[in-house]
């Protein structure tokens, strides 16, 4: 295996944040992928402009995946380039890896992590946190997960090359996605429930009625899903929500 070098690796990692920068219908994130992997290709093709040009061309082709998890493909493709896999192998790898990375990434981040962190922040706001704190909390919590996923993906890809499937399977990302979306639904119920707690004193019966019906339905649905997927989270969060509810009601 040829060495990719620390500088090229970090450079590719930072460039990966722009992977959607040239999104288009024909190549989707293909252009962004090529931009991200360029430092690696330059390093591996030092003194070989023709080789570099060929490599850059094959990585500019159509590619798509979840933007964060595309780092796994980026790492793996870098490793495969370093290991001198054939062009056909690399093309086939990218074709095969894109759908699991896309599907799992959407479920994990867009359906799981983002709503869960937004709702947790909302719950904090309802519990009395200042707007600035709420926003900062969301940005911090969301991006801890975001960066962890990007770093993990890139690292696993670099380490395992074309044999990443076992690591993806072991990470049980779909299961984590299920848990997160269950947690999200549950927090949703909590947000509605807390909203009722706070609006209890409002003298507006139609709104209150709507909030009660919505809150009960949300809590019921949320606890159902939440309990099914993650018992301890359910217990912990339900305790916290009950407390907030009481504070809102009494206070």
């Amino acid at each position: 295996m040829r060495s990719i070098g620390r500088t090229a690796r970090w450079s590719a990692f930072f460039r990966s944040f722009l992977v959607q920068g040239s999104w288009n219908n024909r190549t989707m994130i293909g252009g962004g992928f090529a931009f991200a992997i360029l430092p690696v290709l330059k390093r591996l093709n030092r003194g070989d402009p023709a080789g570099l040009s060929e490599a850059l061309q094959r990585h500019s082709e159509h590619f798509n995946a979840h933007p964060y998890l595309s780092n796994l493909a980026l790492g793996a493709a870098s490793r495969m380039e370093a290991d001198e896999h054939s062009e056909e192998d690399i093309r086939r790898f990218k074709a095969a890896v894109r759908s699991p990375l896309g599907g799992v990434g959407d479920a994990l981040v867009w359906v799981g992590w983002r709503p869960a962190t937004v709702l947790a922040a909302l719950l904090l706001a309802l519990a009395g946190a200042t707007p600035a704190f709420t926003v900062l909390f969301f940005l911090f919590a969301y991006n801890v997960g975001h960066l962890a996923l990007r770093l993990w993906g890139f690292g696993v890809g670099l380490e395992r090359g074309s044999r990443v499937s076992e690591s993806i399977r072991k990470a049980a990302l779909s299961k984590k996605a299920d848990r997160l979306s269950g947690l999200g639904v549950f927090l949703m119920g909590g947000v509605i429930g807390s909203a009722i707690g706070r609006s209890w004193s409002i003298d507006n019966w139609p709104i209150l009625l709507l909030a009660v019906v919505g809150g009960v339905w949300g809590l019921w649905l949320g606890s159902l899903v939440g309990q099914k997927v993650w018992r301890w989270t359910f217990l912990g969060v339900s305790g916290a929500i009950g407390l907030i509810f009481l504070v809102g009601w009494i206070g």
Partner: protein
Amino acid sequence: MSIVLYRVDERLIHGQVVVGWGSQLRPDRYLVVDAAVAASEWEQELYELGVPEGTGVEFWSPEDARGMLSSWDESDLRSVLLARDLDTFLELANGGTLEGKALNVGGLHLREGREEILPYLFLDPSDRDTLRSLESEGLSISAQDLPGSPKVGLEGLLA
């Protein structure tokens, strides 16, 4: 009634197939017919990740698959049969083995020499010839990316 869908799709197992067609047809297994994937363990592992839990996936070379077609079709298991290109299907269908079956043409993407027929379908002259040959082997051919989208018959594709 046991191969519930024959589909040509360059991406083999992916969202449109598993979520789009899979949720409607509820297959028990996906049968991927592809010479290269059948010989490559790491590619198989990657495609296995794209299949929902509880659904099987098998990888076959075209030669081996030809001998299995009738038993798959008589089996109690519902299967979706996928191949990456039209030539693979012609290899399966040669001699009328798939006579009377419907062939769903899903994604064939942009490549040098191909022109756009539909947003998800690009064909070159040799693809058109293969489509005609498939029709003369008795397959009824239509393009449709997802169950809910309009179906375009062979005349529409070759026009």
